[in-house]
């Protein structure tokens, strides 16, 4: 009996010696000590509910700019999507099948977005599937690619440049994520947002710059605008099988996958 305990103890000691040290993690954005750090006063506070404005000069789509050149891999999707559209069908409509919209499309859905700004972060909760996005403002770096859990909204880290919040988002998932119809976003994507308030704080303008060397060449840019809506709150919303049973456009017969 005593020999058994001894062997077990030796085995555990040996296992512990073989383990590498756990990485040092940054303090949570909500950690009191992090919140209490002295920081310059931010030039604006996004706390509130925001709705993408829409309209002809402010489309919800992130369409390729004129002259855009896709990679061969992305071109296959783009051509297939164009063919499906001509047949009155959707192409890889992953959002309709309950996959998250992801950045940047989550920002321009018709549902409003609640934004809560604290000294260390901005939390964005979309009325569309309650998608959560966090923009860290506490000076942390992007997570080690070997440790990060990739996501549809990516990992967003912001810093202030004058009256502008510059947000760098990386670490996206590698599939089921689309920039526009037939244009895949991959794990190589990176999106820079330059956010500023306009119209005396009643509107938010974001200039987008997106790169994804696995899908297209160079940088693509768009500018979108949101307006503050003071009569709307975010409510629970889920993509459910029961819902899709009653959405004719999500049926297999309407989709090319």
């Amino acid at each position: 009996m005593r020999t058994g305990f001894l062997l077990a103890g030796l085995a555990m000691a040996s296992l512990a010696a073989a383990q590498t040290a756990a990485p040092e993690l940054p303090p949570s954005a909500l950690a009191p000590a992090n919140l209490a750090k002295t920081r310059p006063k931010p030039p604006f506070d996004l706390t509130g509910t925001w709705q993408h404005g829409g309209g002809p000069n402010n489309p919800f789509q992130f369409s390729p700019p004129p002259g855009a050149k896709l990679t061969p891999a992305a071109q296959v999707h783009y051509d297939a999507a164009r063919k499906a559209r001509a047949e009155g069908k959707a192409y890889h409509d992953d959002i309709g099948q309950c996959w998250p919209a992801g950045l940047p499309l989550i920002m321009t859905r018709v549902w409003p977005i609640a934004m809560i700004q604290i000294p260390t972060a901005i939390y964005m909760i979309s009325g569309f599937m309650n998608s959560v996005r966090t923009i860290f403002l506490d000076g942390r770096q992007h997570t080690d690619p070997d440790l990060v859990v990739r996501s549809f909204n990516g990992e967003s880290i912001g810093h202030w440049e004058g009256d502008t919040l510059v947000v760098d988002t990386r670490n996206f998932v590698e599939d089921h994520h689309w920039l526009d119809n037939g244009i895949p976003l991959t794990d190589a994507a990176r999106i820079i947002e330059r956010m500023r308030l306009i119209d005396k704080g009643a509107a938010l303008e974001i200039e987008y710059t997106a790169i994804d060397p696995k899908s297209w060449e160079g940088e693509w840019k768009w500018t979108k605008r949101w307006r503050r809506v003071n009569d709307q709150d975010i409510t629970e919303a889920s993509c459910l099988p029961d819902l899709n049973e009653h959405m004719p456009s999500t049926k297999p017969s309407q989709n090319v996958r």
Partner: protein
Amino acid sequence: MRVLLAACLFAASASAHHSMAGFDRNKTVTLTGTVKQFKWANPHSWIEMEVTNDKGSMDVWNIEMTSPAVLIRAGWKSSSVKPGDKVTMMAHPLVTGEPGGIFVSVTIPSGQTLTDRPIQPAAATPPPRP
């Protein structure tokens, strides 16, 4: 035949969590039938209705709608449409011809016609879009 093809009288209006490619926005159908179900839910409401087709048998049409938040601003309540109601529905149909479409308007038994457009001036709420 209770399903009538009409000119595209209404601007396309829909807000969706999915692609709108399957709907023919250049065509509007008028459906007269009986409400089977009306779901008041996020992210979309929907109406399922029974419509007699030109062969005399019954089709079940699923009509996609926008969110309750948008419908409330258009004057809707969760009780606006009930199972068993005889209604006249206008919708943009599926391109494939299957019974299904995206909501445009409905005339309920009281004679009131409901849309998904805000009652207040458009400036107060952006027009829904796909």
